[in-house]
């Protein structure tokens, strides 16, 4: 390496100059290990995305693992019902930093057509989501696009030490696996729907009208 007359860096062939932060992010984004949280028909498209025709391994994201301890990308594919949400949250808490989440399909993102008492109206109400994939179900190309977009996001955000992913509180919680609170203890103060019901006085149980 030498400095030329004009003060420009002269590099030999096949040498690239970068920052270590970029290098770390480059490694992270090209070795995503998805956690397939597939609960419905989007899961079929998720499988198709990983299969030979669409071949997710072209983007370094083909290693589906069924243990959250080994994953850093949760793909929620399908509707999540209120009985499943505590499971989803627990698996999310068990995953190690750095981790990302893709909400795949209309149901995971908004509840879709299932606007009923049992279906959670969008997982982003309860866990953080990085990418939303529209569609019912989305085609594999759409999921691949989301992974490419997520890779761009990962390239922009991290550092080599990963300290932005590493708060002491987070790690302690993960080691101890603190259980989340009882999910169904009705708490009217943080529940606008329930407040409206109580205010309208229609919370009373059955009776012939």
């Amino acid at each position: 390496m030498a400095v030329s007359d004009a003060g420009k860096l002269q590099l030999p062939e096949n040498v690239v100059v970068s920052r270590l932060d970029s290098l770390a992010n480059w490694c992270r984004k090209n070795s995503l290990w998805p956690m397939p949280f597939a609960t419905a028909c989007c899961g079929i498209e998720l499988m198709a995305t990983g299969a030979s025709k669409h071949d997710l391994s072209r983007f370094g994201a083909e290693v589906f693992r069924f243990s959250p301890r080994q994953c850093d990308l949760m793909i929620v594919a399908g509707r999540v019902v209120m009985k499943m949400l505590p499971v989803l949250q627990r698996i999310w808490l068990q995953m190690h930093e750095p981790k990302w989440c893709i909400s795949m399909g209309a149901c995971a993102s908004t509840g879709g057509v299932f606007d009923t008492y049992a279906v959670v109206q969008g997982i982003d109400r309860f866990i953080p989501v990085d990418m939303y994939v529209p569609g019912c179900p989305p085609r594999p190309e759409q999921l691949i696009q989301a992974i490419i977009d997520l890779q761009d996001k990962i390239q922009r955000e991290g550092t080599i030490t990963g300290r932005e992913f590493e708060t002491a509180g987070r790690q302690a919680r993960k080691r101890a696996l603190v259980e989340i609170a009882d999910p169904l203890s009705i708490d009217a103060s943080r529940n606008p729907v329930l407040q409206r019901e109580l205010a309208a006085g229609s919370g009373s149980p059955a009776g012939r009208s």
Partner: protein
Amino acid sequence: MPSTPPPVDDVLAALAEQFGDLPSSVFRGQTRVVVPESSSHEVLSLLKERGFDLLVDISCVDYLDYREPPMEMAACAGHRYGLVYLLASTVTNQRLTIRVFVDDPEPTVQSVVSLWKAANWLEREVWDLFGICFAGHPDLRRLVMPEEFTAHPLRKDYPLQGRGERHNFPVITRHES
């Protein structure tokens, strides 16, 4: 199993002999009998003895604000819940539907777990979704909804979108996960 099950005239005669005239009707070759709640367990015991060894299903209908019932369904007029017992005989291939109507405030019917073991989970499901109490059931817990759930969601006066149960979870933010 033939598409139209064999007639059940002999069974109806036996029922009439012991319980008097029970309203019955036939739809596409399948017979249904309406039984008062007070004698439902006796009727079902008799049917079990007469060879209806298979309890196919127990289901329920909430007739709240039901439109004018059709003629053959006149027995349901004024009642709220209609229980449906689907019985079959594996020996004679006969099939029979038993309807039992119950009402608020505490809809209760005798459990038939003592007759058919299959009734255990079927009755738990009806209890879970409609709130019909099955007296004498050995283990009447919710089957499909979470244990902490308080309502019976298939009742017609339960709002389709629930009473906020689906939004009642802790929120995990990016910072704390």
